[in-house]
């Protein structure tokens, strides 16, 4: 078995009912043929297991999904083996990937042995659960059924029939994951093309563009008439999310399912169940624009399937480097700060025909580039060399030419410390001492910078303190300090910012945990709620002790239990250059066949998880490799 075909897919809403389903009879026929052959031979099979040849109806599938949810604690499941894990269930396998690649038992009440449906890719997007069932061979299903019943837990290495070797042997699972993600993007309308930023220049746009600083060009459908997309705003909305309870409970409020768009996408991307092209923008461009007899193909070259249209018009190339900085800042001797950068080079090539573009990537080692991954249109250079040339044949529209992971070449853009000390159970004193853009030279400009202190489990009653710079506001569960706001960017100099203050919370109340508390089988009646303060040496420890008692378990998709820590999160945006040192020299970009096309380059850096851990409290960290 190789390649990828999909037997069926279902979309469930947050009431666990199927709102969309699609079966691919041609693929199903292959499954049934394979089952027949397998079952005929299974007399030799010591598993004595016949495979289930039919697809469930929507109601059977929904019932099985609800049953699994109940058995496995949540829609995703436990992921690792816990006390409640039943033999034969996904969590019995003891592998976190079973939260993404799941099995269902159809008509479980009938006590049949062969009612397992696997592998179902579970992807949750908006308030929908998407389930995609790829075609595997019956023997793979049997192997998984075996893995689910092994007494030993965890993943065996190098053993035939282990989960890893199944996933290695089954590209259809990988393909089905891609399908599930593509469908997730379609149903939530989350199909924005990567942003390509054009710096204000006389050649592009007029006054408005120079004022806004950038235009976003999105969509292949705009190939004749570019439409300005909203300028990337200085959003801080993600701050609140970080500290909030994350559960896999789907949320309300998404838009209704656009079944027409979904059908169009499925019919074109995998007419018979075998994916051919998962590019939303190509599929919808073809649907909207179609083709006319005057769209002539090139005389000497084949047009790639990923480039159904050729560009016509004024030629130019745009590159934007977009970096996201993640940092864990400790300000402690024993724990080094950790700063990493996820970067990508976005590109838009408005070039006629099917040209090749190449440019050298220099200084990769100096930039500390760790991982380089390329768009499928690129011919991948030899890895691990300091100087590499990238050659690619660009598709139409905006695309991500490459991803990279790097270290921060320039030092942290925001450094310093955050201290929060609880003087009583409900009152704390805090101090920030930060330095922004130290050692950063023009043209690097910090457009905005905000620091938030989230207190998801406490209610802020009052707050006192004045920062040396910027403004402060509070909401029920957070304090927000705007150090640099839009319009007054920081260029060519560094600033120091301090912020001492006190904060008062409403009295602490024991919070009942959501039902997922039973994750590890905690006994509800255990005596963890003892209230003896006598033997506690200080308030901090006492409070930590008290508050950690009813912490809900973190999702396996989270890096740690965010709510267990006090921290401040920094959000910012820096333009002018990359922080890793990754750069593209417009003069060194060459296009073949040669054509005169201006090349523009810009870069922007935003913060990801940029965390200042409370220097006086507990903090999560990881050992670093010292080779």
């Amino acid at each position, binding site marked *: 078995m190789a390649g990828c075909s999909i037997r069926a897919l279902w979309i469930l809403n947050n009431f666990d009912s199927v709102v969309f389903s699609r079966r691919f009879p041609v693929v199903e026929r292959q499954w049934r043929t394979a089952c027949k052959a397998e079952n005929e031979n299974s007399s030799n099979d010591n598993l004595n297991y016949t495979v289930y040849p039919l697809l469930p109806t929507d109601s059977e599938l929904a019932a099985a999904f609800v049953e699994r949810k109940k058995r496995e604690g949540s829609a995703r499941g436990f992921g690792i083996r816990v006390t409640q894990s039943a033999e034969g269930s996904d969590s019995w396998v*003891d592998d976190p990937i079973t939260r993404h690649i799941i099995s269902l038992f159809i008509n479980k009440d009938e006590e049949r042995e062969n009612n397992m449906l696997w592998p179902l890719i579970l992807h949750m997007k908006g308030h929908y659960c998407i389930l995609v069932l790829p075609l595997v061979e019956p023997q793979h299903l049997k192997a998984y059924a075996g893995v689910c019943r092994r007494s030993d837990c965890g993943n065996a290495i190098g053993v035939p029939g282990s989960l890893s070797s199944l996933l290695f042997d089954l590209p259809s699972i990988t393909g089905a994951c891609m399908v599930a993600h593509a469908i997730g993007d379609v149903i939530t309308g989350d199909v924005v093309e990567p942003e390509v930023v054009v710096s204000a220049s006389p050649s592009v746009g007029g006054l408005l563009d120079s004022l806004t600083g950038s235009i976003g060009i999105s969509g292949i459908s705009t190939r004749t008439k570019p439409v300005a997309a909203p300028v990337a705003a200085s959003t801080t909305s993600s701050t609140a999310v970080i500290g909030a309870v994350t559960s896999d409970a789907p949320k309300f409020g998404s838009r209704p399912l656009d079944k027409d768009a979904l059908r169009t996408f499925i019919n074109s991307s995998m007419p018979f169940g075998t994916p051919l092209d*998962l590019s939303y923008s190509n599929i919808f461009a*073809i649907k909207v624009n179609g083709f006319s007899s005057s769209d002539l193909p090139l005389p000497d070259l084949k047009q790639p399937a990923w480039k159904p249209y050729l560009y016509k018009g004024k030629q130019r190339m745009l590159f934007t480097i977009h970096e996201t900085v993640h940092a864990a800042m400790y300000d402690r001797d024993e724990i080094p700060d950790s700063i990493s950068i996820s970067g990508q080079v976005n590109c838009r090539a408005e070039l006629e025909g099917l040209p090749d573009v190449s440019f050298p990537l220099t200084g990769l080692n100096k930039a500390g580039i760790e991982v380089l991954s390329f*768009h499928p249109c690129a011919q991948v250079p030899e890895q691990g060399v300091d100087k590499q040339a990238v050659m690619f044949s660009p598709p139409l529209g905006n695309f991500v030419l490459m991803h990279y992971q790097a270290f921060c070449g320039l030092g942290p853009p925001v450094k310093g410390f955050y201290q929060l000390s609880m003087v009583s159970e409900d009152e704390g004193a805090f101090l920030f001492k930060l330095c922004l853009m130290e050692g950063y030279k023009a043209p690097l400009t910090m457009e905005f910078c905000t620091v938030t202190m989230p207190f998801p489990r406490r209610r802020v009653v009052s707050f006192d303190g004045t920062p040396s710079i910027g403004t402060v506001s509070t909401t029920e569960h957070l304090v927000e300090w705007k150090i640099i706001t839009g319009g007054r960017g920081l260029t060519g100099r560094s600033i120091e910012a301090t912020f001492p203050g006190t904060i008062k919370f409403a009295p602490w109340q024991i919070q009942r945990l959501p039902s997922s508390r039973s994750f590890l089988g905690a006994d509800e009646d255990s005596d963890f709620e003892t209230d003896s303060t006598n033997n506690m040496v200080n308030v901090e420890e006492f409070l930590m002790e008290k508050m950690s008692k009813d912490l809900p378990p973190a999702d396996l*998709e989270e890096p740690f239990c965010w709510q267990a820590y006090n921290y401040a999160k920094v959000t910012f945006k820096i333009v002018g250059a990359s922080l890793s040192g990754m750069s593209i020299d417009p003069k060194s970009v060459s296009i073949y066949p040669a054509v005169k096309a201006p090349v523009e380059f810009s870069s922007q850096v935003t913060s990801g998880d940029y965390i200042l851990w409370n220097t006086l409290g507990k903090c*999560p960290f990881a050992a670093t490799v010292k080779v």
Partner: protein
Amino acid sequence: MTEKPPLKYLSPQDWELLIEDFQYDVVRREKWTSHYSPLSILDLALSSILRKDFPLKLSLISFLEEFSDSLFRNFEVQLALDRLIDAVRSVVQAPHDAVSFSSALKERMVVAVTSILICIGNDVEVCLGQLESLVELLLTIVNRPSHGADRQMRAVACECLRELERAFPCLLAEIAGHIWGLCQSERTHASQSYILLFTLVIHNIVTRKVNVSILNTSVPLVPFNVPQFVVGGSSREVSGLNFKELRRVMAFLLESPQILTPSAMMEFMSLVMPVALVLELQASMLKVQFSGLLYSYDPMLCHVVLMIYSRFVDAFDGQEASIARRLVLISREAQLPLVFRLLALHWLLGFIGLVPDSGGRKKQSIVEIGLGFFYPSVFDPLALKSLKLDLLAFCAICLNTLSADNMGGGSSEVAGPRVSVVKLFEDGLVSVSAFKWLPPWSTETAVAFRTFHKFLIGARSHSDTDSSTNRTLMESTIFHTLEVLSGSFLFLPLETCLITNFINHFGGLSTLTLVTTGTTMDEKSAEWMVLFKASIIMPLKVLANPV
């Protein structure tokens, strides 16, 4: 059963209800099938599809496609197919009209009818006429390469032919030459579908060893006749394939991948590899051309390389370490959705299982890569941390084996790896060190305990019946290492009640460990004490809260 008289026209609302009932379950389905015969449902559906102003045409087509299989009984199949093929011909030949006969409708209709024919027309001999009519219609569509307006329709028709060729292998073998010609002439984006179709035809010719000439185009494209060897099952096998022709074809095919999408690439390689094996093409050729795909950020392309690897392990001799390194680096790409980062680590584990081990070299490189890359980082999701810790545990096992192999060299060589195993364990556990103070139900505790378990029993083969490796484990360095390690935590009194408390919280897991190591307390009580002592490090909060 007698044919029921055709009933009244169904309104769009009726159809919506009918489709919903069919999808829901068998009981609701019967509401309709007891009133309408399958053929009358088909007739009503087709007449609605052919009407100018019917709004639900696409839904109806999908309905027919999904349920034909369960709808028609044997004696109705031919009649149903006749009607469907007439209908598809009318739709395809209807003048293009954006509203009533849009290109989307035409494309959908050919796909659905092809799909229905494949599913209900299992017996070629019974449905020969219908199959030939459909193939002929499709060939007429694809036989206009590089024309402008209908390129998407041609691509779809190619896909239909491909599914027919997949369902009835070698159906198109005799016209392979024509298809190759079309493949060469098609220059629009539809060429991907032509190439996939041709690749499948070649794949079937080669794997079924059918003796046809690919260069010969003496059999006309249309009118199309199903080859005799497909109908009668009579063998057209000969002793040898025309290798020279086939190699030429392969050279042509291998030039085309750059025009394929990642999904199509996966399909293409799955067809090309068996052909390459039969034709004994040099695996290094495939390797040179395709191994770069591993550096793409598209997980499907990465998996293509792994597919090639698993077929041609020898060709990659010496490059295993760089593949392994790349797989672990994929897991570090923060831009990828988590499931793909987890998959990359699973691929690595599957890959390690496949790599032949020569003289401990494999274990050595695993350890080297592990020390550099398996350490979890602070923002790795717990799922990823957990898998990386598995890999560290695996590294520890390799270290142990290596040190056992080096036993003859003197004690200093053994001590080195011993220290490293301890370090691996301690360093790894730092990333979930919050288990020390978080409540017992925290995910960090679960992951930490799981890791401990892995370090302890990971060396054991996962075959439930194999007890010999189990004994080896008990005598292994890792066990003693853990003994040493746990010793440092043993300043705490080992009250029975604490152990009991611990077992209460981790009942499932502890019992599990008992089961998996396959020994009983009596048998290996000394080792079990070590296990429990070491386990005490997990629930420190249990110790901090006397019962």
